[in-house]
């Protein structure tokens, strides 16, 4: 025991090494004290006890004794080997000691006072032979069915647990659940330090194992029910303690794998460690986006975990070749790992545990869940939300960038996710069908993207054998047009503008022509005017001449008639002149 400030003993913990258990129990089981694990048949009590010993012996150098009241050593060795441990080897290396205690009521006659000193001697011998620090008694309750004198038995059990405590042995005692009590023979009365309940529930044909720490004297512990999984490597419990919102964030930006989408995301792509949702109706290219993102991560040298709930890994690899994404080299190099499973394979929480384990084993920087909506098939929306919240919190805390695809069903609101997970999402890219003129085309826009000035534009998604391209949609007087309608409209516009130009040219030419003809007319008029003026001048000249001639004629007449000379000197002169 460690002395704290005020001289109070602080409970020392005995780490189990079981995935997740030490987190929820704040360090493990109470050291040097007995712990009761209760639960119904087949809920994993023995496995839990076994793993506690095995991990203790290997990871923490604390040898342990396994005392079996039910299974024979031969069966146990088989069970141990199913967890990947060679029991006989461990016994030979003095890491594990084993004793099988078998008691059959029909073979035993009780003839008077007795005690269970024989059991103590056997335990003491087993403990001393390997200097054990841990012991598992599985299931000590069998004694009750073998011995009739419950009074003696209870007294002896009480003594046993004291004895184990005195020796400083961390003990795990298993007990079968009773109808009205935690265990059939009320073992919890003796083992009062720590009680763990295992549960095995089946809802809608899907079973989930759960673990709950009912009681832990002198220690804080998670009070929830934690789902757990018995895998090839043993038990793993999901520490679903609320991780809170205090995780550190990264300013690093990573590419989506599609340059034009990066452009829409303020030119730099997603934030590292953010949660990205790509939602859309069936066939809008969600998986294509996801694989592009995966490919770009692999190209950067990052590991990527692809959780496929809809298609098999091979199918995805094959299909994505059609858009120029070849994932197989990355799979071979170990950068990309597919984990394909049917959502209905097991319960939601089991999926969570599996995902958790995959992540902690593979240590990816990118996780893709395709599609997250399929998980709803195995749980209610409240469950899904709580599970996903825990998953995303975990991923965020480990700075893993998560990309989810979400299948939105026709008819339901597009800007709504099945699981109401939108509040957990940092960047939400919406893919939608745009149906015009008997055609479906894919449109993309960014519904939200926390912490960046993202584009508000709708883009049309073009999937071709060279990959994904985003093009501007036609935004014109006739609304948003995509696909061939966009192409038609664009052609139409081009034609229109060509026509207009032609018309313009024609008008210009006409005007020029008009101008020219006007000028010609002006010229003609001027010429006419000139002509008239000339004529007029000529007439004036003629008139003068005629008048002169008249004067001359008159003078001549006068002269001829010998009339008085006119007094007009000019005429005199003229006359002279004429003469």
């Amino acid at each position: 025991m460690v002395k704290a400030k005020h001289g109070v003993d602080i409970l020392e913990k005995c780490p189990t090494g079981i995935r997740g258990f030490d987190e929820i129990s704040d360090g493990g089981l109470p050291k040097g004290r007995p712990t009761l694990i209760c639960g119904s048949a087949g809920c994993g009590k023995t496995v839990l006890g076994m793993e506690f010993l095995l991990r203790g012996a290997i990871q923490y150098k604390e040898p342990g004794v396994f005392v079996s009241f039910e299974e024979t050593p031969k069966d146990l060795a088989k069970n141990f080997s199913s967890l990947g441990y060679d029991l006989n080897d461990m016994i030979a290396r003095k890491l594990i000691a084993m004793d099988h205690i078998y008691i059959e009521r029909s073979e035993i006659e009780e003839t008077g006072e007795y005690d269970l000193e024989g059991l103590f001697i056997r335990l003491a011998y087993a403990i001393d032979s390997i200097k054990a620090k841990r012991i598992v008694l599985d299931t000590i309750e069998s004694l009750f069915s073998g011995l009739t004198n419950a009074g003696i038995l209870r007294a002896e059990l009480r003594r046993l647990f004291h004895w184990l405590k005195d020796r400083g042995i961390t003990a795990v005692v298993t007990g079968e659940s009773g109808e009205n009590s935690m265990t059939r023979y009320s073992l919890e009365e003796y083992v009062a330090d720590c009680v763990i309940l295992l549960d095995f529930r089946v809802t809608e044909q899907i079973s989930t194992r759960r673990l709950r720490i009912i009681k832990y004297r002198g220690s804080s512990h998670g009070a929830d029910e934690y789902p757990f999984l018995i895998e090839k490597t043993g038990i793993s419990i999901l520490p679903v303690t609320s991780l809170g919102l205090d995780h550190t964030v990264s300013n690093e930006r990573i590419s989506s794998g599609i340059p034009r989408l990066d452009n829409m995301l303020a030119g730099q792509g997603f934030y590292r460690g953010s949660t990205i949702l790509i939602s859309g109706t069936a066939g809008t290219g969600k998986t294509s986006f996801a694989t592009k993102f995966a490919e770009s991560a692999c190209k950067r040298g990052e590991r990527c975990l692809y959780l496929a709930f809809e298609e098999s890994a091979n199918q995805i690899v094959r299909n994505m070749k059609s858009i120029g994404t070849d994932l197989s080299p990355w799979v071979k190099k170990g950068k990309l790992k597919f984990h394909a499973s049917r959502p209905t394979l097991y319960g939601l929480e089991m999926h969570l545990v599996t995902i958790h384990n995959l992540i902690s084993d593979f240590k990816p920087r990118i996780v893709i869940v395709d599609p997250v909506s399929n998980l709803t098939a195995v749980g209610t929306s409240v469950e899904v939300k709580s599970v996903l919240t825990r998953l995303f919190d975990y991923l965020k805390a480990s700075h893993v960038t998560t990309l989810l695809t979400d299948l939105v069903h026709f008819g339901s609101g597009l800007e709504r996710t099945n699981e109401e997970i939108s509040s957990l999402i940092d960047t939400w890219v919406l893919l939608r069908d745009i149906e015009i003129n008997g055609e479906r085309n894919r449109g993309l826009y960014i519904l939200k993207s926390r912490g960046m000035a993202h584009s508000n534009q709708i883009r049309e998604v073009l999937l071709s054998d060279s990959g994904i391209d985003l093009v501007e949609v036609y935004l014109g007087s006739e609304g948003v047009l995509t696909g061939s309608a966009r192409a038609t409209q664009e052609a139409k516009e081009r034609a229109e503008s060509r026509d207009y130009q032609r018309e313009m040219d024609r008008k210009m030419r006409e005007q020029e022509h008009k101008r020219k003809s006007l000028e010609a007319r002006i010229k003609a008029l001027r010429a006419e005017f000139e002509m008239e003026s000339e004529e007029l001048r000529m007439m004036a000249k003629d008139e003068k001449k005629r008048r002169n001639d008249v004067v001359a004629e008159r003078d001549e007449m006068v002269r001829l008639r010998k009339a008085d000379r006119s007094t007009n000197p000019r005429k005199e002169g003229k006359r002279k002149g004429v003469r």
Partner: protein
Amino acid sequence: MKNKPTGKKKSAKSPPVEEVWILRLYVAGQTPKSIAAFANLKKICDEHLAGKYRIEIVDLLKNPTLAKGDQILALPTLVRQLPPPVKKLIGDLANTERVLIGLDIKPL
């Protein structure tokens, strides 16, 4: 009990025709219960199996490994090794009737 916990006690004579009873008494040191058990056993054997029994006493404090073989939990435990089948009696053998039933001895 003559302070001879691990030794063997043989009856004075063993008739060749009749079967020999081999009884093994497991104890842990000299506790009041083990002393009582031995005394009770001796008394019953002398009464009912005179001359054809052998009692072996196993002190598990000295030989803890022996507990495994006969699946000993409770102490004291009496195991009837012979004649077969093996029978086990636990307790201090104070209830003579039950001991006789347990050992399958027909009262004379």
